[in-house]
């Protein structure tokens, strides 16, 4: 029998560990914590831009079809439109005024990251968009394609449709929250790679 003292000690350590983890999680933000994502410096409604005004994802996230990162637009790019558009109601006007102020001050906007990739993972947006938007996949041979839930994709998708496979319907989100819609764990990546018969070697994603 384990002496009571040792058992008590072990019990305290385990309970203590759980308490500490919960404590830290409660007060920290996603992706690791349970709290809400911290507020963005500017309340940017995707609904207005995408749903109402039909702006395509790749218009702002310019690099998404070109390289690894999707990228957030430069402030200058916001000004393409917001030089003239100053908002229909008071709240919108305040937020847009902030953008114009950032531009006037030559300051970048410190957007809070919503989807965060660990440092040891390489994810190339461009390759995934190319895969789903091309006529026949990435190669010469034709075949079936499946989305992240394993359901078959018919024909080629648009860029927006491809984005929503992982990110969900961002266009209808007033505020984008992590883990809304799709879980993006390593298992999710692997399932999709397996079902689509694309490479699953560790070095494909891990760097």
């Amino acid at each position, binding site marked *: 029998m384990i002496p009571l*003292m040792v058992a*008590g*000690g072990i019990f*305290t*350590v385990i309970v*203590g*560990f759980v308490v*500490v*983890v919960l404590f*830290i*999680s409660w007060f*920290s*933000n996603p992706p*690791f914590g349970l709290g809400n994502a*911290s507020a963005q410096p500017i309340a940017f409604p995707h609904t207005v831009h995408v749903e109402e005004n039909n702006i395509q994802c790749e218009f702002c996230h310019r*690099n998404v079809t*070109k*390289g*690894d*990162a999707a*990228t*957030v*637009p*430069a*402030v*200058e*790019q916001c000004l393409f439109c917001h030089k003239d558009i100053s908002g229909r109601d008071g709240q919108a006007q305040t937020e847009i005024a902030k953008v114009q102020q*950032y*531009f006037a001050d*030559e*300051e*970048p*906007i*410190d*957007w*809070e*990251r919503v989807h*965060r990739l660990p440092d040891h993972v390489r994810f190339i947006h461009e390759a995934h968009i190319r895969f789903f938007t091309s006529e026949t996949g990435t190669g010469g041979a034709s075949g079936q394609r499946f989305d992240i839930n394993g359901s078959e994709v018919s024909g080629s998708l648009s860029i927006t449709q491809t984005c929503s496979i992982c990110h969900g319907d961002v266009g209808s989100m007033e505020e984008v929250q992590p883990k809304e819609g799709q879980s993006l764990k390593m298992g999710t990546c692997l399932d999709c790679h397996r079902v689509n018969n694309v490479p699953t070697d560790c070095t494909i994603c891990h760097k």
Partner: protein
Amino acid sequence: MKLSRRHFLAWAGLSAVGAVACEGFGIREGELNIQSPVSLPEDLVRGKDNWYASLCRNCPSCEGILVRVMEGRAKKVQGNPLYPTNQGKSHARCEAGVQALYHPDRIPGAMRRGGNRGSGQFDQIGWDSEGMETLVRQLNDRGSRAVLLTKPTRGHLGLLTSRFAQAVGAEHMNYEAVDNNTFRTAVKNVYDQDVLPDFDMENANFILSFGADFLSTWISPTRWNRGYGEFRQGEGRSHRGTLYHVDSRFSMTAANADKWIPIRPGYEGHLALSVAQVIVDENLQARGVDVDAMLGGDTGRALLNDYRPENVVGQIGLTPEIAGGDPVAFIKKLAHDFAADVQTRGPSIAIAGGSAGAHSNGLFNVEAAAVLNWLVGSVGAEGGVRLNPSGPWQDVPSSSSSASLDDMGRLIDQIRSGETRMLMLHNVDPVHGLPGSLDLEDAIVSAQDLFVVSFSPFIDDTTVLADLLLPDRVYLEDWGDDIPDPAPGYQVAGFQQPVVNPLWDLDPRSFPDVLLAAADGAGVGEQLPWSSYQAMLKDSATALFEENRGSIDAGSADEFWTALLRRGGWWDESVTGPDVPRPRAGLLRRIMEGASTPTFAGFGGEGTLYLAPFSHNTVQDGELAHLPWLQATPDPVTSVAWQTWVELNDITAERRGIREGDIVRIESSQGSIRGVAYLNPATPPEVVGVPFGGGRRHGSPYATDRPASESSNVANILEPTRVAGPQSLAWAGTRVRISPTGESVNVSKLEGNVRSVEVGLSAAEEIIKTVAPGNY
């Protein structure tokens, strides 16, 4: 609450877990912010890399490089595959460019001296409000009694600095600690060339090298390493080339030679002439070589006959052990291998420089070796000494030599006497590099009325003495150009462009632009008619475009400029070196008449050793000592990093009771330094080798944070002997005594990092296998 033992343990465990958990789950502040730039600069595409062609300025050979830039940050330096001299290859030194760029110890902006001179205290000032204003005022006051001290500059920076000096009435001097003036003078005297020649090793059969460590630091090592690879195992070669290296120290080139010939220091010329004697005596010279004309008649022949192998072997210290048999027969065989096989197996090259040229008779040594190329018909021939054309612009210097030790001595006298009242420094550190006995530091500190401006981006032993710091941009942030010296046998102009902007917390200004602005401010702007350095370069590029030749085919000057920057330069393979059909009459006789033996000032006699200083493989003469990668790169031969090591022969050192890691004192008549003993079987018993570049006292901790026993400056104890002729420092002309200090340290070296594993047969032969030539 009463804290029982049990509770204590539990709480202790809990807090340990908590500490680990906090560290593990913590995310660094700011890591979750994604910043977007304000505007859309062309070169800032997130997640995408751009490669810009530029030039490396870490060492004088100046390789063409490609720099990988991501999100406005330079990430990696690589060789530019198009650039003619290095063809995509690079030296360890090139890589460290990014460390210079992001160095934690860069001078952040314009500064003025705070405390006493040399205290290292500087206060930040505004560039325009005070920095430039002070510079202009001082130039107006003292310009005519100023000295501008730069590295040997060629290309447009050379033109600009000399024009600037002229305009303000100052004197422009070039300085480098380990210079190549002796080799330059020999090239002028023997081949009649103003620019350095290239050695076409790719197509050579036999290389006989005298003291030149051309695989490590000598002049253009990357280019010659490239040649060396082909020389050994090039595709399409019928046989492997052979390299013999004559050197009193076991350098990297010696380590790679088929035969290392460690003769007595300073007698390289005698050996070269002995080889020449055998060639002439046995009629081994190449067809069409007029030996009589070179000898200038019978007097010359008689002089040459003094160098019969049997006459010189004793004098030059060529023992039967070194020769592996009869020394006389060895020299004869060497002459045969060098000369006789030219018809059947391919050309031979004799290369001389480095330590062979750093004795009082250095010029004789180098010339005597260089003349061998005439005897075997290698001058201007394929597989031989490839002569180079000068640069594409008339007024732009394509080569420059460094100030002699006499010049530097005169400068120091002028500072002491008050004749020189202003000193402008750019990327030079003469306080560290000059022999200690000249004591430049004392001259500057004790000068009554001297104003010192430094344009260097880093603090070094000389810059720390400045009154005003106006830091230059480092080369990855700046414009520039270069005319390679040596060029690869044809005309080349390399161009350097800024690949990134300085970081937000740094405010350096481009040195050439500062000079232009200062000239304007001093009212002599009309003599420097360029709006900026970039504009000056662009004008010259347009001039090249108008000549309509070379590697770039463009429709307009702008198109030409873009193509030029994309490729990193312009070259014209049709403009090759001059045709020099034969040597000057009596050349060999003139060299023999100037023959002498090396003199060693200071200590002599029993118990003294030859001091063989050498340029460090990566930090060179110390100007790169602030770059951590280069400090941490093991020396190829000894594998020591960070410390200043002292190479000693293992057997003689043990006899003196010195073991590896012992701190030894090296004493010359000029003073003493300490260093860490490194014993090896390849150091000649009467030689002690110490690298240049250690012992920096001011600047980055990477250069200065070791105690004086582990990092010391060998220049401090050099005898101020001059090389007869060019009057450069004869840095190999010092004799020293060495003694143990009783202290001992752990040598920081790579050797021994890997524990040897018993796998049955792990002797060196089983790891590095060898095969006889012709057996594969």
